[in-house]
């Protein structure tokens, strides 16, 4: 079962997504701020990270830079899930090395699950 780390400070959103990930056959772990997310990724080395941008303590872009700077976590695919839609943020996300970027309110949970599956499959093939 693929391990997913979900970094999301909004408990309502995190709850819904965790439920859906479990239903989709994944093993999700929730982190509620940026620092917790970095610590948990380094500890558990998940197969994929779902990352929010606006989070307390450490924002998602900084989390991304930290993960990419560490050889142990640099190769873990990261899908950024956010509700910030401005071009500046998107370009920063891409620059920091995210695998993909999704606007939360534009996606259904099913679409997100499908994206997670796609990315994992591609990573396995490449790996």
């Amino acid at each position, binding site marked *: 079962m693929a391990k997913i780390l979900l970094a999301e*400070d909004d408990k*309502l959103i995190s709850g*819904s997504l965790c439920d859906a990930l479990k239903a989709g056959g994944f093993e999700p772990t929730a982190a509620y*701020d940026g620092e917790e997310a970095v610590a948990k990724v380094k500890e558990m080395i998940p197969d994929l990270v779902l990352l929010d941008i*606006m989070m307390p303590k450490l924002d998602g872009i900084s989390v991304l830079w930290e993960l990419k700077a560490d050889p142990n976590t640099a190769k873990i695919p990261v899908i950024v899930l956010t*509700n910030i839609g401005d071009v500046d943020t998107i370009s920063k996300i891409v620059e920091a090395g995210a695998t993909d970027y999704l606007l939360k*309110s534009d996606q259904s949970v099913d679409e997100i699950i499908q994206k997670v599956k796609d990315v994992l499959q591609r990573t396995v093939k490449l790996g």
Partner: protein
Amino acid sequence: MIINILLVIDFIMLAVVVAAYLYSSMKERKYLRSEADQSLELQQKVYQAQVLKEINERIGYSLDTGKIVDIITSSLGNLLEYDTVSYMVLEDSGKVIFKCHVENTVSHNFVDEVKQKMLLSYGAILNQRIEPKIIDESITGNILDDSIKAEVESFFNLPVVISGKLVGLINVASVVRGRYGEEQASILYTITNQAATAVSKLQAVLESEKGKLAAIIYSLADGVITVDLNHQLTVYNPAVKTVLGIASDQTLTMFDIVDSLAGKVDVRTKIEQAIAEGKPVTVPEVMLKDRALELTAAPVKDNAGRTIGASVVFHDITTEKSLEKVRQEFTAMMVHELRAPLTAVRWSSESMLKNLSAAAGTDPSKLKDTVVTIETASNNMLELVNDLLDVAKIEAGKFELNVQEYDLVELVNEQARAFKPQADIKHLAINVTTPSKLVLKFDRVRIGQVLSNLISNSIKYTDSGELDINLSENSEQKAVVVSIKDTGIGVSREDLSQLFSKFKQLKGSDHARKGTGLGLVVSRGIVEAHGGKIWAESAGENLGSTFYFSLPLGK
């Protein structure tokens, strides 16, 4: 230059001598004159006054010396008897302008004679021999007839001086011998003097207007320059250096300006474009180091509509840009905050649908959780939308209160009770200290909203400790003061002043404790609408904070 000054001094001396002579001779004559003469003189004086008035009016706002002399000569009319009246102007270029009005037919020789006499006289005044290469000559009035042999039998020349500068020479000439005495000279002298005074005054007014204009340009915050058609700088104000970041305290040249904008915008091209198109050309945003400028080049025309150069205005739009940025950030933040609950509602509904149609049958406990999520998310969103609407109302000045007499103690206790469950979850005690009763006029719903905002904020930002809610009367200031003191994360000094402002609050706010800060903006609006004040105090970060608001008594 020195020669010029000497000439002017020479000329002033001459004018003084002429004036003194005319004055003394007139006095003498007056003494000798009979009564009949005096009445004639009076008549002439009245007429002279009329002519002067007419000249004054006709000169109007013209500063064209040629035109002024024209006006003077044509006004002489019946005041003086003459066959020709002429004037001569020596231009700086060396060109001589000679105009002659022929009242009674004379010969070419007569006119030539007048011209020669004027040239001699002009040369004498300027103390130099005038040998004009070009004479711009024009003769108007009656036709010339060379069969008339009459020569110039009497004449006189009178210099026209404006603001101490010789601008021309007037001549009246006649075929009659001895026609002109001091009296006639005196008339013409008075007239020219008067005209010259009028023009000097006009020049002074224009100079002062120019001075005012220069002072305005000098004091403008925008950088302003004007250039002539050869791109030479003709005017600039101090703001140009500030706005363009030119450090030099030397006199500015066009090169400095072009250089300071190098690589950003080519000012010369913009100037040429403005001149060619005959209308202003604007470059909306030129980024110059840490400044944003708006540049407008416009053609400058003279009275006749001829383009004589261009002006360029450098308007500093740095502040506008940063305000625009803050506004955009606020909008982005709001969009983000509105999307979050919407996302939760959407995903929850999706999961609920799946649950309802699951092959294994519906899981009721899960269903309840999902509905709770939807309810919470909807409430969050409603609160946000209401806050936004309130802020909009406050900003538009359309905030209406329903003010009645209520007991504020009762309301405070009610709100404190309402938040007890939330405080219990975080193990926070709420202590309330109030008098037994405090009746005053306020909007119960709105003040309830303020209390709710402040108490919920305190709980949100406090992880351990307690909340102290205090209500007291300040009879000195005729107000009641409510304070909510917590032992939470506190507020840094620089953030304290910005807590209650719409845009600032959002910066660097802690997203763990969701909030847009709009609640405080709304609270301020409500309290201020009551004529009260709202403020916060904190010893610093992690040292707790106290929020206060006051409401006036007896209102």
